[in-house]
């Protein structure tokens, strides 16, 4: 099923003549390639710095407000990139809060940073993505046994050296998985790059489809994009496969040290700064405009319908995706073969294909193969599952990899059949990973715009759709409440995930 959009893309791009391919190559490809790779790289670095530092501080020190800090680091996940970009473009405008603050502090001496650049896009996407790195790095840091680090310290390594040479390599699988998620988000992002006018592959594909109605050129570009991300994924796998670490459940857990007073200030200064830009400021902005809307009595009952539609869709899509992803993850985590890798990578194609391309692929498939389904939620669900399958596969597989095979073998030795073993041993042990997968998909579905915009059943407006409709005509007062509902809607899901993590 995941291959439907890919087949559509391959089929459509086959209809591109070689001349048009050459034309594309001459006019766009080199720039697009450079822009996209650059953006992916810078955002990956940004997310690493933000995510690992915050995860390390939180995992290694006990301090006042630690739980709050954890939440603050995860909450940016609730804000879609288009909302981020929208908020920051208006904050940094001349009459925006940040713009005014900048002029008050620097006057005319230093020009305000221009957000309509690659750096602006990288800034926004890093803020929107570092939470993935934080989550996985923190879990991994908490689970790693302290003995290795202690051994390094005993051998005379400084704390920094111990971190750099022991801890960081141990983190590698987690970081690789997190970065894969981040980079795939960057490659498929439309919200931020379109608002900031930074030409990436995805944006260019949209332009082809929107401006020229040229689906073939769009498909051609999509194919290049898919190739690019597959290359990236294969590289990532290559680096990750060289090492495999198994944690055994009996190892001691790390005891986080109580932070000293000075450390406390430093920690909060660092985390506070990250949280300010990645969540607090956007939240205050959204609350401000929602309040304006409330006072102007612009919020009607239909907002509850939009919220309900969004949550319903998120719930269904996440559940279906996690169930479908499980066999793929199991297969690949247990049997390494050419075929299982192939299957795995194939499932990740949907994530990088732009939403409209996935949508058109699914429409075409459903209309020709099972037309009776058309028009209902099923079509939209299919597209969402195709898009977010890789997220679920990634995190379930990461959990499976940390599960020592001997535990499963023990189950089999004790007489459990494969199914019983799966149900009573494997699934309970990877519960955390499954919950994480569910939540990640849920959140992404909740934020998803392009495919939903095209495939939603008639009259089935979700929150992102409303945000898009209202913000395209600059109706801040109407877009902000929808964004607020979106943030509130993700809270229970995040709470479930954090609880499952603590339970481990």
């Amino acid at each position: 099923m995941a291959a439907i959009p890919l087949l559509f893309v391959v089929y459509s791009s086959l209809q591109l003549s070689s001349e048009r391919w050459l034309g594309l190559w001459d006019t766009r490809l080199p720039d697009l390639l450079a822009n996209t790779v650059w953006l992916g790289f810078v955002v990956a670095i940004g997310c690493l710095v933000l995510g690992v530092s915050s995860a390390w501080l939180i995992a290694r020190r006990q301090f006042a407000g630690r739980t709050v800090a954890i939440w603050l680091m995860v909450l940016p996940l609730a804000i879609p990139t288009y909302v981020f970009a929208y908020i920051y473009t208006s904050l940094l405008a001349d009459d925006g809060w940040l713009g005014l603050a900048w002029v008050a502090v620097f006057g005319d001496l230093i020009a305000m940073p221009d957000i309509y650049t690659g750096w602006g896009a990288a800034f926004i996407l890093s803020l929107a993505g570092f939470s993935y790195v934080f989550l996985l790095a923190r879990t991994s840091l908490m689970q790693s046994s302290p003995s290795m680090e202690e051994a390094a310290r005993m051998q005379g390594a400084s704390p920094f050296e111990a971190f750099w040479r022991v801890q960081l390599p141990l983190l590698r699988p987690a970081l690789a998985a997190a970065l894969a998620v981040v980079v795939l988000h960057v490659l498929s992002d439309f919200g931020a790059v379109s608002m900031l006018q930074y030409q990436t592959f995805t944006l260019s594909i949209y332009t082809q489809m929107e401006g020229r109605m040229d689906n073939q050129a769009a498909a051609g570009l999509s194919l290049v994009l898919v190739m690019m991300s597959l290359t990236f994924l294969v590289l990532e796998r290559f680096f990750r496969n060289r090492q495999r670490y198994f944690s055994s459940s009996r190892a001691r857990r790390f005891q986080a040290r109580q932070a000293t007073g000075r450390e406390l200030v430093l920690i909060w200064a660092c985390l506070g700064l990250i949280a300010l830009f990645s969540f607090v400021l956007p939240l205050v902005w959204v609350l401000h405009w929602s309040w304006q809307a409330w006072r102007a009595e612009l919020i009607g009952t239909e907002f509850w319908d939009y919220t309900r539609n969004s949550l319903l869709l998120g719930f269904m899509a996440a559940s279906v995706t996690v169930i479908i992803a499980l066999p793929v993850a199991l297969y690949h985590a247990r049997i390494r073969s050419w075929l299982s890798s192939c299957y795995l990578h194939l499932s990740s194609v949907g994530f990088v294909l732009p939403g409209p391309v996935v949508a058109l692929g699914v429409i075409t498939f459903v209309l020709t193969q099972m037309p009776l389904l058309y028009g209902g939620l099923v079509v939209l669900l299919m597209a969402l599952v195709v898009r977010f399958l890789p997220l679920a596969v990634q995190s379930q597989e990461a959990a499976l990899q940390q599960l020592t095979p001997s535990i499963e073998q023990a189950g089999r030795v004790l007489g459990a059949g494969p199914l019983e073993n799966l149900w009573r041993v494997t699934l309970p042990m990877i519960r955390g990973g499954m919950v994480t997968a569910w939540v990640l998909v849920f959140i992404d579905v909740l934020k998803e715009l392009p495919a939903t915009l095209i495939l939603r059943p008639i009259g089935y407006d979700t929150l992102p759709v409303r945000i898009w409709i209202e913000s395209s005509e600059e109706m801040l007062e109407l877009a902000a409440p929808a964004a607020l509902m979106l943030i509130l809607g993700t809270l229970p899901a995040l709470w479930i995930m954090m609880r499952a993590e603590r339970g481990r």
Partner: protein
Amino acid sequence: MKIFKKLGLSLLGVMLAIPVVQAADDELIVYSGRSDKFVKPVIKQFTQETGIKVVLHSAKSTALLNKLKVEGERTRADLYLSNDAGNLQLGSDMGLFQALPKAVTDVIELKLRAADNSWVGLSARARVLVANSGVDTSFVKSVFDLADPRLKDRIAVTHSGNGSFIAGVTVYMEAAGVEKTRSWLKGVKDNVGGRTFDKHSKVVKAVASGKRSVGLVNHYYIYRHLDKKPDAPIKVIVPDQGDGEMGVAWNVAGIAISKYSQRSAAAVKFVEYLVSEKGQQLFAEANREYPARQGVAASVEIPAVDSIRASSVEMAELGKQRNATIDLLEAVGMP
């Protein structure tokens, strides 16, 4: 596994409890590329008067056109509403629409609708210049003056992917020729000062704040800005009004009936209402555009329709020449 079961059961309960909202069979479904806010007043009135319900399915004009095309005869859309005549003409060329009764479209002048009646224009907007009133821009009389070296780094335009921008360039290309337009675009590219804007409202803002001196926008964005800031130092220049000049570029928002509509009788009624005097007033007023039907008064704030001369380029050309325009924009490397 308890957590799964609990979660699953509780949410399953929620799912079953709430019915999925979907359009009922007796409602007209409109694929709309125009902001809801501007369409809802007229729909409300129409439903009140006729009892026919109308559901808006909003998305980007072109995405909806793509959808209509892929769906073919299985589409549930009865009507297609777009802000851009180019999209309507493209849909017509792809054979997605059915002809409207002549009696319905006759009230709209031929220039603002398809020759074969496959779509009809509802409201028109002018591509005008907005200038900062504190700066001397007396030499700016034409859109082509935007390429004047005196305006280096002082003009504001949207990026070249913007539908209104493309439509405008198509008009200039048709009225003044490809070569003149090409060299004009090059001049504009030199004058934008390194960046274009992603929204028209930001173009107006940049001019009002003095960062730029002149901007190219659809007329209603200027009045929208003045709503919020009545004292903003901006003025409207209606370009190319001199004798022998091409006149200001128009674009229309319009509507068409899907070829496969199951409720075309009701759909025709809706279009009939939209071109009626009352419907025209409601539709155009919501966004301060010019009613397509002659004799219906536009908003008093905007320049009176008989005081400005519009270019003679037919709206259908906006669709036919769109790809040629994009080719030109790309060849110039317009940002």
